[in-house]
């Protein structure tokens, strides 16, 4: 099974870290990542830019693009893409295509990445033994 682990924290607090603190946290996380990468169990790793850098395309309202992150609580995060685009307009064009392909409600938040490492998953991924006996 592949799992996505989504990182939540206060961006005010994290944004306040000094470069040294930031580097120290990243180094500690990096050693966890390195352990997983060594056995080919680490997929893509990304760090997002702050929410203030985001725009959101709303499917329902003629693909209206609004500034800022997706802030509704009625909908849940169901998936994500990482796309390589020359600029924001190109990324919005991709989101527009996605919205045409899947027009039923919801939104696409478009947030630039600060850090991206593609990672590499091994062929022989550990599979969970299915058991109903606990």
């Amino acid at each position, binding site marked *: 099974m592949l799992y996505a682990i989504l990182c939540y924290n206060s961006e005010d607090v994290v944004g306040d870290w000094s470069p040294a603190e930031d580097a120290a946290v990243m180094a500690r996380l990096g050693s966890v990542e390195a352990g997983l990468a060594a056995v080919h169990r680490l997929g893509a790793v990304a760090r997002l830019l702050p929410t*203030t850098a985001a725009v959101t395309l709303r499917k329902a309202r003629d693909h209206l693009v609004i500034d*800022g992150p997706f802030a509704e609580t009625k909908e849940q995060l169901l998936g994500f893409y990482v796309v390589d685009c020359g600029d924001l307009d190109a990324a919005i064009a991709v989101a527009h295509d996605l919205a045409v392909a899947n027009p039923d409600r919801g939104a696409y938040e478009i947030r*630039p990445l600060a850090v991206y490492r593609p990672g590499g998953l091994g062929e022989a991924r550990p599979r969970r033994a299915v058991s109903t006996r606990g």
Partner: protein
Amino acid sequence: MTIANIDAAWIDAALTAARPQAVAALLRYFRDLDTAEEAFQDACLRALKAWPKNGPPRDPTAWLILVGRNAALDGVRKSSKSAPLPAEELISDLEDAEAALVDRLDGEHYRDDVLRLLFICCHPDLPATQQVAVALRIVSGLSVRQIARAFLVGESAMEQRITRAKARIGAADVPFGAPGLEEREQRLSTVAAMVYLVFNEGYSAGGKELLTRGSLCGEAIRLARLLLRLFPGEPEVMGLTALLLLQHARAPARFDADGAVVLLEEQDRSLWNGRMIAEGLALIDKAVRHRRPGPYLVQAAIAAEHDRAERAEDTNWARIDLLYGDLEQLAPSPVVTLNRAVAVSKVAGPEAALEMIEPLASKLSGYFHFFGLRGGLLFQLGRRDEAKVAFDLAIALANTAAEAAHIRLHLDRLLKESAG
């Protein structure tokens, strides 16, 4: 988050982050700056006790507002035993139910509260540096000591300045109603200018001052981000934030180990902060979509041209010249023309640039950068004696040790080449 890892640093950062919104909301309740500040202070002390025990609240800002308000109301009630009952009009929202409070802390309220708090710091009677000092004290919550160090004055002198400034603000008619659309725009542009002032106080620091003053750049970026979160659709707020990020990204390369200025073209670009640059560029992209460029956005675009160039010689000066042309239209000033002349000197040569700045001589006769650039252009044209006169004038007009040192670099070069 588990209780065990709520450390003092986390709480400190959370309190700092919550401060502008919390003080702003408390100001709306009490309509008195000192009461609002004391209430917030009180709430912070309670947070330091309660949060490590109970874990942090889901919404620290709402918690601080609620607790701060109750604490201040308690204070008012207690003092009422020995004094006449407090003026009811001091307390504007007694009827607020606690549950309703959280609902009311929606974007609209935060937005106008914080904007009001920032706006009152920009009182037109206050000189620019005092506006900055007051904003740093009230909005950012820096201690008087920190601000005094940032402005290179004694603590008691700064204390007096801030007290006097706050008295002025207190005596002024603070507009508590929700601002209309036009008024909100005006307040926003006044506040944006003040945030840029805070940044420049930090940015103009050099060398040894950098330790104390450099933090002002970080405070300004924090304020700009706050404005951006409150006004996510304002292209000029995006532009301002981008401008600050793109300039501050170069901070690690702007001074050498001895604290001397390193010119832009000589900076080690690998030291520039790539993440800040990426964020600044992303904000420019967002702002450009609105198709009504303002002065901050154009300045950000100029900073971006520098930041994008991997080597100094890759700088797209023709594009920078065009952008300065736009800026001359949007916000004409001799200083903008002076800056444009730098780009012109790269694109069309020093002669053209010199011609461009000659008409500015009377307006900029007291301006350090005018003589710095003039000296540089004359030097490039081989007019060394005139260059030396200009450089000497520049040094005499330098505002900081860093500026003077910067010109001395040119003078040294001039002397070296004359000798060689």
